[in-house]
């Protein structure tokens, strides 16, 4: 019997560098911040990160297939407008949420068809759908917020299932569901294979295109569902409410250790990435750093994460070629 490979213990999850970064940030902000390390504030971070997490989870899968979805923010805003409008017109919460989810799903499928069936490069395809979603939202609302959405949604949003704020509960459920799908269903393997070795999947007789489109559809669906949280939070539907959120989602995924190549991805890492960004923003806010600099710092963070990703990959191949 021989031993397997270079000395590595078998494992299913890795701790990305972001985990350590997160700890460092938590400590730093607790020391230097003012009122950072309080329970209400921590819960606040959780609430504010919940929408981002709903987007970042499917974004992880999309990036694992070497793709990208730039339209999530715009689709989320549009879904929020749809949700708010239906509520304003007296429809039930269930119907409104279904409609919002439907809008998101439609855009997700459109993205999938563009990328998979037509062969359009993902960033251009989703840039285009971004414009379309954005345009629809602006036209429908004339740039104004949709208010007067009734009591059903705020009530739900303020509720505390199991003692947790609703948004955190919803985010947790999403986490569990995505984690379940990735670990316990075939889809989980297929997503990594799409990025890592597509031919292997084709040879195995799998409906590769369907899975690939499905990944984008999932992104759209989650964007639609996230509208529930966003609209609940700002108590209105606004056409540009979530613009740029896809950037945070991409940042979270990259910071969390998912790479753009070969199907290397981790949902746990994305969770840490989301929390890192949430903590970063919250802490910087605490230190009265302007929100625009926060955005800039996230940009730098992404680039740094990409560089580290590249360096690690280079180190790995150099080592294995010894």
């Amino acid at each position, binding site marked *: 019997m021989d031993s397997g490979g270079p000395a590595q213990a078998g494992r*299913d999850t890795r701790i990305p560098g972001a985990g350590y970064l997160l700890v460092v940030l938590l400590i730093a902000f607790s020391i230097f911040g003012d009122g950072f390390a309080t329970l209400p504030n921590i819960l606040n971070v959780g609430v504010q990160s919940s929408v981002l997490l709903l987007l970042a989870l499917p974004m992880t899968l999309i990036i694992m297939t070497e793709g990208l979805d730039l339209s999530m923010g715009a689709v989320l805003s549009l879904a929020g407008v749809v949700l708010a409008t239906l509520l304003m017109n007296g429809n039930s919460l269930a119907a409104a949420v279904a409609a919002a989810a439907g809008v998101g799903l439609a855009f997700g499928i459109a993205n999938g068809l563009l990328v998979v069936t037509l062969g359009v490069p993902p960033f251009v395809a989703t840039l285009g759908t971004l414009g379309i979603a954005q345009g629809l939202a602006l036209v429908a609302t004339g740039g104004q917020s949709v208010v007067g959405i009734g009591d059903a949604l705020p009530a739900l949003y303020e509720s505390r299932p199991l003692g947790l704020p609703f948004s955190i509960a919803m985010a947790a459920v999403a986490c569990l569901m995505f984690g379940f799908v990735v670990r*316990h269903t075939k889809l989980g393997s297929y997503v990594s294979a799409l990025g*890592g070795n597509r031919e292997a999947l084709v*040879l195995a007789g799998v409906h590769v295109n369907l899975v690939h489109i499905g990944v984008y559809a999932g992104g759209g669906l989650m964007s639609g569902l996230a509208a529930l949280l966003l609209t609940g939070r700002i108590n209105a539907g606004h056409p540009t409410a979530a613009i740029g959120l896809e950037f945070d989602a991409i940042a979270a995924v990259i910071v969390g250790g998912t790479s753009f190549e070969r199907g290397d*991805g981790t949902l746990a890492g994305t969770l840490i990435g989301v929390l890192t960004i949430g903590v970063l923003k919250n802490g910087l806010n605490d230190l009265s750093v302007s929100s625009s600099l926060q955005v800039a710092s996230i940009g730098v963070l992404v680039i740094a994460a990409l560089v580290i990703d590249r360096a690690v990959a280079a180190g790995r191949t150099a080592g294995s070629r010894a």
Partner: protein
Amino acid sequence: MRGISKAFPGVRALDEVSLTVDAGTVHVLLGQNGAGKSTLMRILCGAHHPDAGAILIDGRPVRLHSPADARRLGVAVIFQEFSLVPYLNLAQNIFLGRELSGRIPGTIDRRKMHAEARRLLDGLGLDADTRTPAHELGIAQQQVVEIAKALSQNARILVMDEPTAALSDREIARLFERVRALKRDGVGIVYISHRLQEIFEIGDRITVLRDGKNVGSFAVEHLENPENPANLENLIRLMVGRQVTAAYRERFCEAPGETLLEVRDLRTGTGVRAAALDVKAGEIVGLAGLVGAGRSELARAIFGADRVVSGTVRMTGAPLRRGPTGAVRAGVALVPENRKTEGLALMRSVQDNVLTAGLRTLFPTGWYRAARAARAVADVISRLRIATPSPARLVRFLSGGNQQKVVVGKWLTAGSRFFIFDEPTRGIDVGAKAELYGVIGGLVADGAAVLMISSELPEVVAVCDRAYVMRDKTIVGELSRTELTEENILRMAMHHG
């Protein structure tokens, strides 16, 4: 397989080939590049359909319409490029597409999968944790996982294509242990390789293919001691045979000129070593060897396309600056093996392609003048007799031979003096081949030097003034004009010292 024939446009790949593989035996398939081994195996695994002939499994004729059919009937192929997904673990890879279902519909039973995978890997003697991501395993272990994958599909016929190409001696020994275990389990194995030592060690039968025909099939035990050179000679003679070739050269180089290229003590980033290699003006020097010997890698390192770890490459006495830019500036040219992906921009015109390498030579100040460019291009087109209705024609519409001429033309405008050709006549029909030999001959007649990599032995013998032979990533010998025969080349290329 009985009486399998297959023809592709322009070439008869297989001609009434028959092959019998018994359960629990290793049947070695031997032959030069292009003899038909790959085609035969692709037919067996369902990727191609034979024009004539039948395939019988367990005595019953079968129809293989697709790789899925072949897999279902128990045929599995292990290629050189592995089909594992890097970031999935071993169990996921083994069961890709055929995951074991759990109780809740739609879920997979991970525990059962890992247990099954564990059982398969134990049977093959690999104790890597089934949770390890595939990319963390070494090549030898990945191969074992591939075998496990094949076994999990109840493969009864396993085809292994050059399995030992990337393995160390120790890993090869382990692989053979596993192969023997498979034999005991009744699996029939088709083993494609050119490493004689291994063939004699693991093989039960040998079939030699040449030019698409089965020219001989022996039980290994009928052959005597492998050390006996007579057996090696027999096999080589079967592989080589008497072939008609379009290759010829009017006049060989009597008095070579100055040494243009000089390589000393070279070690490349991919592990290729070359102690000494010289090419003089007026010479066509061959670089022979079998697939995997490292010839292309050596050429790329000389050209600067791959990393050089140590050693020197000199052109007319001066060491080359790093990278392809430095090499081209010094007058070195590379006509790559994959002309479509590495030598040409298919979407651009003949004119644009011909000018690519010569822009700095033709226009040293950086200002492009259309008239001068057009003249240079017309000059090249006529000199090489490139068949194209106009210089504006997109290169992708040209025939293979003419595409190759465009690549050569590219270097003419660059004023290169040393040309490296990597399999220059591959995929080119007979008539164009002759033209190409004329072109190469013309180059050296004008004082250039050529290093030609070729797997077609008749071509090497007929065209080159002398040749270096490579094996296992080193240069193992040099053959002068008088020594240059196909048998000698093969002997040097195959002998596992």
